[in-house]
């Protein structure tokens, strides 16, 4: 029974961490972020299964987390305000080619971060960018000037 309770507690805590740390940290993959994800995964696994090496234990843990994931997804779909809480909302980072610095600061991002992300999307110059939007999933969408 306790493995199910541990799975529930850890799932809620991970959701909390993901929302509090900020979307960029968990969606980008700088070496630091990768290390963070590995440490998180390892710490969660140990707290979740502890000394239980049984198949039953693994099935219970995975089943509980999968159920919670579907439940969270359904609740987000059913109740839009909850979706904003659980997943966040888009934030405009570049408006008509100009940085919105207040929004960059809010997510601890610099102009260099935006330029790097743009280069990864084959955009050489930010002069060509009309909009840059930090999406709820942590990725940045670029919409070029026509």
């Amino acid at each position: 029974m306790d493995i199910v309770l541990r799975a529930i507690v850890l799932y809620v805590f991970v959701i909390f961490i993901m929302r509090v740390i900020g979307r960029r940290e968990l969606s980008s993959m700088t070496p630091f972020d990768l290390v963070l994800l590995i440490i998180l995964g390892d710490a969660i696994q140990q707290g979740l299964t502890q000394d239980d090496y049984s198949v039953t234990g693994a099935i219970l843990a995975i089943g509980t987390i999968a159920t919670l994931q579907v439940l969270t997804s359904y609740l987000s779909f059913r109740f839009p305000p909850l979706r904003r809480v659980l997943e966040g909302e888009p934030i405009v980072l570049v408006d008509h080619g100009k940085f919105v610095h207040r929004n960059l600061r809010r997510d601890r991002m610099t102009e260099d971060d935006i330029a790097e992300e743009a280069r990864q999307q084959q955009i050489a110059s930010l002069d060509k960018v009309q909009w840059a939007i930090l999406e709820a999933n942590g990725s940045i969408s670029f919409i070029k000037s026509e």
Partner: protein
Amino acid sequence: MADIPDRIVLRRHRDLEGRGWQIWLRRGLFALLPVLAILGLLNVFGQRPESTTKSVDAASLKLYAPSRVRSGVLYQARFHIAAHQDLRQATLVLDPGWLESMTLNTIEPAPVGEASDNGRLSLDLGHIPAGGSYLLFLEFQTNPTNLGHRSADVSLKDGNRMLLQINRTITIFP
């Protein structure tokens, strides 16, 4: 020129109208994380050992053990008995909380005898001459499913004669 992207409302998504409080909520919640870490450093969640000493004319007992542990951790309890007078049959009596959902890995040195003293674990340590001391180590592991707050009193007896008692509790965090 691209128009405003669909579903983007500039007042909400660029100017963050009505969302100013969200960042402060996030920062406030984030502040809980270092608070947790600081509480951990302050031993709120164990398992740093603490010393408790009690002394009477016949003997003194110093207990060095954590009073807060977490499920799954290994820890040690050390009992140091100093005999001020001759103790013919020094006996340590431990509350059941010491062993409830705990794995007792070892007791060193092995006691002369073990028994139940009205439901408590009684360890017969044998004779300790006046001026002598006895050091007993118990090595535990908290069972992963263990959780809660239990009495973990320790009594020192000489035969059936109660000499002293240390009152303590042990708290097990999940």
